């Protein structure tokens, strides 16, 4: 920034700093607690900044033999869900945006209606469905139900609609097939929307707890969230606060690393999603 800052700039800056502090405080609190011995925290959580400190909580997590297997499960599920959701949402969105076929309005309305169905309402039939197909405790069971993602379809439909049709018509005149127009023109032009949807899907999949808890009953198929929860003792909220906090930090770490890598893309994805 060049030139002098006005009083208004200072006020905005102060407000942003304040908001950031409010936002960061609980996270800092969690991180602080995760380095404290559990027995001290049972008595009081008020001495965050004074010793004793300990790494025992993290050691306990890493000591559980399955933690890295759970992390791998989470990665497979999150990446699989992201890639497949992008594929499904893009294909369906392009179809809704650019083709006309009998029944399209009805189909689109149904897709939108799926928005209104809460997860809790379908979890039992979903469980039965996968039980009858004998698919529980597989990656397929963890990934497939999440691919029907109406918001993703809607997002891609709107995004493809906003691409000027003339650009695709020019490609048709350039001897591109319908598929090539999709693959070489529409898809590359939709990258910002793909990024938005991809990041959202990945985070959602990584943090997902309800469905994996229901579907993955064998410990070796646990995702990280379910696995970590399974390690908690009955009275964790009073006896194991430090351990609980260390789990939270540990589960959030990969996402944080990803965020640091893709920070620029995430910011533009979120901002672009808002401005579009």
């Amino acid at each position, binding site marked *: 920034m060049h030139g002098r800052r006005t009083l208004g700039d200072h006020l905005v800056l102060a407000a942003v700093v304040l908001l950031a502090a409010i936002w960061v405080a609980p996270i800092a609190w969690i991180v602080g607690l995760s380095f404290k011995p559990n027995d001290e925290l049972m008595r009081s959580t008020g001495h965050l900044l004074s010793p004793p400190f300990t790494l025992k909580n993290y050691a306990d997590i890493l000591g559980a033999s399955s933690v890295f297997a759970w992390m791998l499960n989470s990665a497979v599920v999150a990446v699989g869900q992201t890639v497949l959701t992008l594929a499904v949402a893009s294909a369906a969105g392009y179809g809704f945006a650019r083709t006309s076929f009998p029944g399209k309005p009805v189909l689109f309305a149904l897709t939108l209606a799926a928005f209104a169905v809460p997860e809790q309402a379908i979890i039992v039939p979903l469980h039965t469905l996968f039980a009858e197909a004998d698919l529980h405790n597989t990656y397929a069971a963890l990934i497939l139900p999440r691919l029907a993602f109406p918001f993703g379809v809607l997002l891609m439909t709107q995004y493809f609609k906003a691409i000027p049709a003339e650009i695709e018509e*020019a490609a048709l005149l350039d001897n591109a097939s319908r598929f090539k127009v999709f693959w070489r023109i529409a898809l590359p032009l939709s990258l910002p929307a793909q990024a938005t949807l991809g990041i959202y899907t990945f985070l959602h999949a990584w943090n997902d707890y309800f469905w994996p808890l229901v579907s993955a009953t064998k410990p070796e198929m646990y995702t990280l969230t379910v696995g970590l929860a399974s390690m908690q003792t009955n009275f964790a909220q009073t006896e194991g606060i430090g351990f609980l906090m260390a789990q939270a930090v540990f589960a959030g770490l990969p996402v944080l690393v990803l965020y640091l890598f893709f920070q620029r893309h995430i910011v533009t994805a979120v901002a672009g999603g808002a401005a579009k």
Partner: protein
Amino acid sequence: MGGLVLRNVSKRFGPVGVIDDLSLEVGEGEFAVFLGPSGCGKSTLLRMVAGLETLSAGEIHLGRRRIDALAPGERGVAMVFQHYALYPHMTVRQNMGFGLRNVGMPATEVEAKIAQAAALLEIGDLLDRRPAQLSGGQRQRVAIGRAIVKQPEAFLFDEPLSNLDAALRARTRVELARLHQQVPSTMVFVTHDQMEAMTLATRIVVMNAGRIEQVGTPIEVYRRPATRFVAGFIGTPAMNFLPVAAVEAEGARATAVLADGMRVPTAIPATRLPAGPLTLGVRAEHVVAGQGSPAVVEVVEHLGERTLIHARLQDGSALVYAEPGDSALRAGDAATLQADGSAVHLFDGAGRAYHAGLNP
């Protein structure tokens, strides 16, 4: 190369008719300009030729082939869109090469064609840029370049100059005319701008509400407009139209008597005129000052090389006339005006035109 033939072409969007039984032949190497007001169906017609819109009825032939059922890419046409429609994520080089690579042309040949077209359009130094890094005029050239490399049988232009500023539009107009001399393909150019039509066309097709009003050379449509619509659409300022109160035959020629009493002895054969109300049409440059009917000056437009004077006759009808150079007249001044009978047109109630000499 080959000519373009439209035979009884119609287009309806649901119940709405946009193009109505239109037939036309555009000769090989011709520069045909479709001229008409916004919404008259020009783009629709062009898109039907390109294969981006289906026909409701009729046939389209290009060269020796019937093309109306072929896919857009197989028709041998290239189109330059109004908003250029460049591929935003590709460089200029990739934009121009996309169509060639899609038909499997070897890379070296593609490069050669791009280089050739780039030289012709003077965009050689832009080849590695993206469309977003180009000015409007440069994008326009790239869009034309993308069409040229394909060496199509026919070029289709949909108002390609309408997004350029006035100065650039005038320059590009001349360059397009030059381009047509160097790339002598059949060109179909669509515009609502009569100036573009007049400067570019070997033949103008004046359209109105999905129909052809007249086909002719620029001078033909200017001098002998077939209908009142064409007469009013072509020429700046628009032709004056004055109601005719009576027609008297003087020898074989008709003399029109206007509502305010002005007598205009025309060169139009009286016997050809139909019964019923007539309108007299006269261009601003064919109104003579200093004789004839009294009028009051209302607005004076100083254009430099000529002056347009908007006046009102005693019966209330408006009349614009042009004086070469500057004029000392001011709003409120009195003038006397006379339409030059040798250059006027008469129009019947249906808009049909009657000219001096041979009538169609």
